[in-house]
């Protein structure tokens, strides 16, 4: 098990954002999390990367307990890459510098090594000709591919994707999903929050339906999409498929 989560709780005021979630993820598994807005999907993902405090429960990644108060928490974060809905590229750095920065500062790679790694990955996602562009000069799809490459350049063992296509124009969604599919095929362990149910069906090993901070139902894509056991899941899928 690369990720073990036991009885995770996280509350904001009166909102129980993550409510007793337990989950084990295997090496190379692709887990897609679906659920209505406000169901705690983002909070849950952010806990895995220690961007969020947890109230109780336990998260163990590759044998290391995730503890936000721990002094070396940034070391554990190294193994977990994250891609956000709003890209969060560094606007003052060009594309290649965006990808090189943490490699140099955190992984202590030489400029040369970081540069080659960045270039290799950028070429893989079709951005070999955009290395000197600044984020403001890129389309949404290009930005998101840079953000994925920036995370990958750190050689993480796990990748977290939080609605990474939600801020994109429809014609750009495909190029980003293609990169994610490619990663999944290469055996990356991935947790993906998305509204793209077709992506979940094609790529997921497991689909989790979350609501009110709880895992309502989980199973293979076929189970969840074709034969959901719980009425609430069925109801959500009907309305979500209507939006596609």
């Amino acid at each position, binding site marked *: 098990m690369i990720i073990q989560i036991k009885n995770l709780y996280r509350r904001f005021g009166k909102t129980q954002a993550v409510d007793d979630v337990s989950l084990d993820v295997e090496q190379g598994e692709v887990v897609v999390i679906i659920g209505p807005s406000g169901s705690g999907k983002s909070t849950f993902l952010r806990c895995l990367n*220690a961007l969020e405090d947890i109230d109780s429960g336990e998260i163990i990644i590759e044998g290391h307990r995730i503890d936000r108060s721990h002094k070396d928490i*940034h070391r554990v974060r190294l193994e977990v890459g994250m891609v*956000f809905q709003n890209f*969060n590229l560094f606007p*003052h750095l*060009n594309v290649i510098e965006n990808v090189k920065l*943490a490699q140099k500062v955190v992984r202590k790679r030489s400029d040369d090594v970081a540069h080659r790694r960045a270039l290799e990955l950028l070429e893989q996602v079709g951005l070999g000709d955009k290395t000197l562009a600044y984020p*403001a000069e890129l389309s949404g799809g290009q930005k998101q591919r840079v953000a994925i490459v920036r995370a990958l350049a750190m050689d993480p063992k796990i990748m977290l994707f939080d609605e990474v296509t939600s801020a994109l124009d429809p014609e750009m969604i495909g190029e980003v999903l293609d990169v994610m599919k490619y990663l999944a095929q290469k055996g990356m362990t991935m947790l993906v929050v998305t509204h793209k149910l077709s992506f979940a069906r094609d790529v997921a090993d497991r689909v989790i339906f979350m609501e009110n901070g709880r895992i309502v139902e989980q199973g293979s894509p076929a189970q969840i999409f074709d034969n959901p056991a719980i009425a609430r899941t069925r109801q959500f899928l009907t309305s979500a498929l209507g939006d596609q």
Partner: protein
Amino acid sequence: MTAIYNFNIFRGINDLIEWASQQLVIYIDIFKYLLPAVPKTILITVSSFVLALALGLIFGLLRISYRKPVRTLAGIYIDAIRGVPLLVQIFFIYFGLGAVLNLERFTAGVLAIGICYSAYLAEIFRAGIEAIDHGQYEAAYSLGMTRLQTLRHVIIPQSIRIVIPPIANQFIAALKDSSLVSIIGLRELTRAGREYYSQNFTDFQTWLLVGVIYLIMTIGASRVVKWLERYFAVKGFGTLKA
């Protein structure tokens, strides 16, 4: 009559020329006297501003520390210094501390202005850092960067663009406030002006010229700032290709 009248006009013009050339001689004399003091004014301003930038950045960062006592202490420093007139701080450092620590005039003057302006700059830095979107921290943290690395490589470079105009205003204010240290006998521009007029009693011309020299320096400074703003605006924000 006509001839006399013409003669008077002629005399009038003649007087005017004579008056003007006398004035010119006075102004040139004053200018010669003041000019050597200009580098001192610049030196005081630049030295104290460098000190203010360093202290201001430190206290600005302490002000947003995640440790509450540190934040509180930095807040007290900033509020205390902003609440006391610079002139009083100059007296306190030169006559008060200076007597104990044996500070020279120059050191005391630079310390006083530097500390005073550090409080204003700290607030500017704090605001500039807080203006950066929280997603930038999250992206940096998720890449394994520490808080300090994030500030240094991600947040502060973006804040610079925001803080340049207000910092420039502070620099110009510090340039003008440097005249206050003339009171502890530092021979900068204002002091030189006082010395000149007390010897020659040309109040009007002396202070006019002192004022004009300050004006030229502040205009020059704002020119440099305009250039800096353009330089930093281009970097990374796609301003060139709008």
